[in-house]
């Protein structure tokens, strides 16, 4: 493997992965957002996955592998745009990969695709159904992206598609939904519920992506960090105050605040702090020997410390 293309390279995780690959392979990246001072030798192409220039880039550069991190995960844009970028973008990436002889594509999915349901087993394995759209339709594009990648996995036996489903990612640079939630000082929770939640540090996720490339993996993999704690413990350990509210109050408030753009996610997200969505990560560990370097106290202590890492 000589040349790796990273989509969404300017995001927190994109930068971490790029820095890890830099020097070992040739790294090029695309992103709509700039990365002002990337390490020397990393070429950034400021372009949109949906534009023809993206195809041109793959045709001329012929990367051996693509790490696909270019997703819109926040709700600040129109749902239609979010859907278009995520689903159509992934389709493009996979189609071009087939067409231009890319050997491996890592598609960055999420543990959220399983959905948080009361009857969820602890330790859902990769065969568990993707239920998220049942209770949280606003993020059904996540499940669509995942299923699209899975379809390519079966349709193109020569293409090494890796679907990676990490648990809640915390860290100073990654802006995941859960980190936005935990960054609040007074964190609203559902009265009478306190589900177990798994966390993983952003650097361990970057390591895992590199491992997936190194081992030339193929298939669907849950990515699990050092372990699970109840939501309230996570809130306390990151310095917040849990504020339990009756569910109907919580849902109504969030729905309204979200509509006024005062809250980062819609009320469907409430299920993820009410019911468990914890994964079995044994398959990835068996294939790669992955061991997270950050323990749970470590993940919580380092969370959000360097808010200025972006500058």
């Amino acid at each position, binding site marked *: 493997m000589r040349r790796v293309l990273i989509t969404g390279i300017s995001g927190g995780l994109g930068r971490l992965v790029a820095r890890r690959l830099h020097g070992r392979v040739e790294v090029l990246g695309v992103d709509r957002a700039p990365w002002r001072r990337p390490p020397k030798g990393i070429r950034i192409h400021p372009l949109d996955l949906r534009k023809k220039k993206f195809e041109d880039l793959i045709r001329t550069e012929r990367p051996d592998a693509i790490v696909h991190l270019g997703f819109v995960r926040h709700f600040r844009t129109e749902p239609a745009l979010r859907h278009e970028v995520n689903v159509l973008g992934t389709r493009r990436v996979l189609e071009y990969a087939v067409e231009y002889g890319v050997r491996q594509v890592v598609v960055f999915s999420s543990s959220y695709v399983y959905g948080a349901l*009361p*009857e*969820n*087993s*602890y*330790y*859902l*394995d990769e065969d568990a159904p993707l239920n998220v759209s049942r209770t949280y339709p606003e993020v059904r594009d996540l499940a669509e992206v995942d299923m699209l990648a899975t379809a390519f996995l079966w349709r193109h036996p020569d293409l090494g598609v890796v679907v990676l489903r990490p648990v809640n990612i915390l860290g100073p640079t990654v802006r995941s939904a859960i980190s936005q939630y935990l*960054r*609040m*000082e007074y964190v609203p929770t559902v*009265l*009478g*519920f*306190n589900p*177990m939640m798994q966390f993983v540090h952003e650097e361990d996720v970057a390591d895992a992506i590199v491992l997936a490339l190194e081992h030339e993996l193929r298939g669907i993999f849950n990515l699990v960090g*050092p*372990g*699970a*704690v*109840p939501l309230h*413990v996570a809130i*306390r*350990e990151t*310095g*917040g*105050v*849990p504020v339990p509210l009756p569910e109907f109050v919580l849902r109504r408030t969030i729905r309204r605040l979200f509509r006024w753009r005062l809250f980062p996610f819609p009320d469907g997200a409430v299920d993820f702090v009410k*019911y*468990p969505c914890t994964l*079995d990560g044994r398959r990835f560990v068996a294939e790669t020997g992955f061991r997270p370097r950050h*323990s*749970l*106290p470590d993940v919580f*202590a380092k969370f*959000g*410390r*360097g*808010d*200025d890492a972006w500058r």
Partner: protein
Amino acid sequence: MAVTAPTVPALPSARVRGRAAARATSRHHPLVELADELAESTGRALRALAPSAVLRLEEEIEERLARVPLRKNEYGYDPWGFHPAVARRILLLTSLFYRYYFRVELAGVERLPAGRVLVVANHGGQIALDAAMIATGVFLEGEPPRILRGMGEYWLPRVPWINIVMVRSGSVVGTPKNCLDLLHRDEAVIVFPEGVRGMNKPYWQAYRLQRFGLGFMRLALATRTPIVPVAVVGSEEQAPGIANLRSVARLLGMPAFPLTLTWPWLGPLGLVPFPVKYRITFGEPMEFSGDAHAEDEAIEKLVRQVKRRIRTMLDRMLEKRKTILSIFF
């Protein structure tokens, strides 16, 4: 745990700054610390008021909990959400019921083998106090003490607080995957193959075993787990059922809606069980082998053996209850 205070950079918003400052002095928010202190002093005050029997029981639970083999993380939680500090309080409550209310007579707990095991019992009494009493018995009188893992009804995780109590005391939702994972980790799991059919039947069907589900036998075969049959007498009289209103249950999204001698006529008081005498007997472990994916008929044959064992044990225990008084003494 030793945590160095992070250096605080110039941060954009006051909200974040307040939080970072809180972290610089201690890891927790001052309000959280205050709540902790309040809880602790309340606990101390309650302990000062408690009778000495309760304190002794608490010590006993503490000593036994320390001997339970557990795989805990840095925060004291096991992979399924069990937490000794929370479980201690729940066990204190169930142990008080065990010793002083139901005065449980336990036999054969030494037959519980070490390592993975499936405990299979008859079910009755409208609420799963039989499960709590079996589990408390294994914890208080088994050597070494163990935490029996319950396979909860799918409805339970939806109930506020109950879902937390269930998980912190070692139970999980009764999915096959959960049971498999627990058995693979050499845990002791308790199942009631009659499910709601057994628990919420009317009293004139007391101690009549209902249809057994087959799932537990498939799991036992797949993981080569010994099955320990258990018979419980007393549970059926704790809240004798009159009827089960299925339509009301469906309306409320509950697995059953039983009417008993006291519920709902006496209001919340009607939920209090009668102080019956519980008798629990553990049978010899049964080992089965065969194909876990065999046809239902083949599995059913094996299940019938377990059912017959429980039936025999139940009959023998019921024979000993000569008069109506022996329900209570």
